């Protein structure tokens, strides 16, 4: 090996080592804060679909995992008060105009919707994004509804003969959202016993994104 090549390798190696140390140190001083922020975010978004008044437990600590209708593992957050399950929240997935949309669906023990909030979506800004609570109150219309109210065949946008308004300029997005919510409710109806079973193994609390 030529002497020159070796020097360059050493220089590059030293820079890598130096920045590696800086990054490791920065990670070390931020890791706890970042984990705390992630937990706050999670509890905040859960708080919007499972009101504080209905539970006295830590939602994240009492979560369990199960497989959804598509075979993906999802986390089911459970609200309990004095040991009884009062509500459930879990992720539901819909297909919109620009791909997958993720929502958190919160329901009470009877399957009545407590709230739906979007977690992630790629819909067109200004058109398809009206499911975000900060942009429009459209998504609040589902609060209090359940699988029989309205009947299953009415869980559609008006254009398809259902009872829900599409929003201005977009039909595909609301259609996907309504379908996702309906499937989410059906998932609860089909797996009620398992979801309410507090003796089921608890989920590993891990930080996801």
């Amino acid at each position, binding site marked *: 090996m030529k002497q020159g090549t070796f020097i360059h390798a050493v220089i590059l190696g030293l820079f890598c080592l130096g920045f590696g140390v800086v990054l490791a140190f920065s990670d070390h001083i931020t890791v706890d804060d970042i984990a705390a922020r992630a937990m706050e975010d999670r509890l905040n978004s859960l708080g919007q679909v499972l009101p504080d008044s209905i539970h006295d437990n830590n939602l994240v600590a009492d979560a369990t995992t199960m497989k959804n209708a598509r075979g993906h593992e999802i986390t089911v957050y459970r609200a309990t008060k004095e040991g009884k399950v009062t509500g459930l929240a879990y992720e539901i997935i819909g297909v919109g105009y620009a791909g997958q949309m993720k929502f958190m669906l919160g329901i009470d023990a009877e399957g009545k919707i407590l709230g739906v909030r979007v977690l992630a979506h790629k819909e067109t*800004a200004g058109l398809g994004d009206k499911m975000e609570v900060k942009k429009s109150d459209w998504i609040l219309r589902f609060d209090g509804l359940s699988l029989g109210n309205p009947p299953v065949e009415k869980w559609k946008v008006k254009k398809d003969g259902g009872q829900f308004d599409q929003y201005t300029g977009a039909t595909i997005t609301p259609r996907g959202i309504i379908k996702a919510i309906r499937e989410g409710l059906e998932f609860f109806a089909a797996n009620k016993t398992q979801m309410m079973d507090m003796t089921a193994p608890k989920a590993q609390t891990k930080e996801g994104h």
Partner: protein
Amino acid sequence: MAAEYKTIAKDGLWENNGVFAMLLGLCPAMAMTGTATNALGMGLATAAVMAASSMLVGLFRNQITQEVRIPVFILVIASMVTLVDLFMNAWMHELYKVLGMFIPLIVSNCLPLARLESFAGKNSALPSLADGLFMGIGFTIALTIIGAVREIIGSGTLFADASLLFGPAFKVMEMRLLPEDTGILMMILPPGGFLTLGLLVVGKRILDVRAGKEIQMGGAHSAA
């Protein structure tokens, strides 16, 4: 000395502007300019990374040999981006929730790399810091202008959601210039970005010709 910094500032802000003259960093300039607010946030984060990495490279320029300079430059930029990402996530979490997903994209921006290669690698720390900073500010201004044009025509608003990004005090920046649902959707979709950028580049060149300047063809190495 002062004259040197004046040239650096003029270069970054106008003469050799990263977007409008060198046509660099077009990936974020297209992807992040749907609204002026996002464009401004992305610009500021990029400016911070550019200033820090230019200064570091200026500082270590005598230790970085020609043969390994490109990997070292990329290492410096990637490290700075990671630091911004970590610190923002931990201590500026509200801002991070809006900008977070775009910060890793700064690595894919070739403007910081181009400045390290053509300026910071040949100059000492302070002028390099100034160059990174002014190039970053020039980039921020360019993105914000593109974002403002697209947002006004596309959604009829200006700086929408600025208060989510920078705090409640910036609520005054949020404006609605056209009635709701009158915007031309194409402007906030990717084609609108290319059209806007093209027209703005033409506009800058017309101004330069009027001022009797020679038109510089785009390219990172035409600088300095």
